[in-house]
């Protein structure tokens, strides 16, 4: 499609403005991480007058940043993948089938998002503790407990989003695959999933980021060894001082792998295989 000049220019200006909007705080974070603590709350300067890398060194000691990072990574990855797999199965059912209880299921699942987290917190904790005591399944203070919690948290939105994406994959694809001799699951795996890949990637990112950033449940369901980043970062706010520069340094550092992941994944947000596959 040949793009008219006004469009190209509006795009350049628009994307530049949006990029500035998105990245301006990142600049502030960078400069804050390079300042000595006393300067952080001082007068604003585009470039700090004193630059030091102390924060980047100290931040590993103030809290066990490495351990928290690994915990977060493991929990978020597993929760995200598990959530997407389960959500995909459920979304396929909701999108492609009419069955009794379909509406009830969808609305009930969504309604869980309308309740504040703290109300879930206590009953959930009590259930976990009792499961531990009665059945010996130790979910409190363990990674599996947190993983199960997070994958369930992200399921409702994941399912709803995936239903939307699957719905935009035309039924003709399913039928074409059935004609080729695939059962319903075969059609699903071979044709529908690749076609909905961009949506799946989007939901995967959503599920990962939700687990990555969750604070309330992590603060209660983890102990020293399983604590995640989102909670751990608050450990920079100690009794004596809040080490703003270390907070920024740590945040930037732990976000680098995530941004790298985004850079890799964003190329999957491209045209699926629908174009031209239905003749």
């Amino acid at each position, binding site marked *: 499609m040949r793009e008219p000049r006004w469009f190209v220019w509006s795009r350049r200006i628009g994307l530049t403005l949006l990029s500035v909007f998105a990245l301006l705080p990142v600049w502030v974070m960078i400069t804050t991480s390079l300042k000595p603590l006393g300067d952080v709350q001082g007068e604003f300067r585009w470039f700090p007058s004193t630059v030091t890398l102390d924060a980047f060194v100290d931040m590993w000691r103030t809290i066990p940043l490495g351990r928290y990072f690994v915990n977060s990574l493991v929990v978020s990855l597993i929760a995200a993948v598990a959530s997407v797999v389960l959500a995909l199965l459920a979304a396929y059912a909701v999108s492609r089938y009419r069955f009794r209880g379909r509406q009830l299921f969808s609305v009930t699942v969504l309604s869980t998002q309308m309740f504040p987290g703290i*109300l*879930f917190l206590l009953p959930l904790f009590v259930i976990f503790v009792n499961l531990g005591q009665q059945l010996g399944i130790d979910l409190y203070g363990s990674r599996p407990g947190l993983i199960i919690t997070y994958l369930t948290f992200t399921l409702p939105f994941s399912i709803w989003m995936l239903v939307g994406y699957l719905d935009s994959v035309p039924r003709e694809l399913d039928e074409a695959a059935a004609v080729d001799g695939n059962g319903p699951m075969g059609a699903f795996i071979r044709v529908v999933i690749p076609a909905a890949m961009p949506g799946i990637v989007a939901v995967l990112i959503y599920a990962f980021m939700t687990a990555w950033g969750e604070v309330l449940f992590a603060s209660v369901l983890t102990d020293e060894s399983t604590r995640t980043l989102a909670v751990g970062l608050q450990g920079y706010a100690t009794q004596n001082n809040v080490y703003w520069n270390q907070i920024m340094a740590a945040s930037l550092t732990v976000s680098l792998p995530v941004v790298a992941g985004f850079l890799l994944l964003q*190329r999957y*947000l491209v045209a699926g295989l629908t174009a031209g596959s239905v003749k």
Partner: protein
Amino acid sequence: MITANPAPEAGPEARTGSTPVRAAPRRRRKRQWLPYLLLLPVLLAELLIHIIPMLIGVGMSFLQLTQFYIRNWTAAPGAGLDNYRFVLQFDEASGKALLHSFWTTVVFTVLVLALSWALAMLAAIWTQHAFRGRGLVRTAFLVPYALPVFASVITWSFMLQRDNGMVNHVLVDQLGLLDERPFWLIGDNSFYALIVVEVWRLWPFAFLALTAGMSSIPAEQYEAAAIDGAGVLRQVRWVTLPNLQPVNQVLLLVLFLWTFNEFTVPYTFFGRSAPEQADLISMHIYQNSFVTWNFGTGSAMSVLLLLFLLVVTAVYLLLTNRRRSADA
């Protein structure tokens, strides 16, 4: 009513209409269990982690579950509808504050939703077709989403400080747009400042969702429209938007619920207590009940919030589905 398909038609069974009658019932029964099987793991997880705790939460609203009884809930005295009565006293200060918080949240959510969606649509349209650096631009947009909330929101509060913040430095010292340094973290402006921060955090996700949605639009449709003489704007209106219908329907609902219940951003931005101009409902409920472990009142407020959101969702789904079947 979740008829999410653009062209509602009968399910797979219909395709087998040409098979003999005796085979059909067997096929139907065989097909029937598959969706349930697919839902089972989700159902189990949801039951354990969400549904049962939520029902317990609702049950708590009928108890006088204060800190005195938290240790042994089953002994908490029943409160009937007392918690609800206390919450709904609209002529008292507490009821007025709740109502004010509710309206503030409604306006907040609508504005944030509109802005985030608009920015996301623009960005998605502009990045729909490849150009040099598109990958970097997309990643740049997702960076706010990648940063830890705590750090990025605190950074915004630094930027919006009256004396030492970047925003006032630019507006007053460098650009000279204003004479006096305004407050952004307290006072009337705090509402708008919160909107900016929330949009900053939210629009990347909308952008992600829309980009993913747009990518499955077949190129032929654009080509056909171009042949028919449609320019960029027309193509957006007649090709992009209709194809995005299922995604948009879900996205807007999801963003609405998400924003309405937003807690972490105002909590961090305003340092644990919000100015009254920006008193969002989730924080309000927290400060007025959970902070003292008064789970009875807190649950009552939460149940009312849940009912409101359920109604909004139901109305929304009805409207969007009716419009869609009208279009089709």
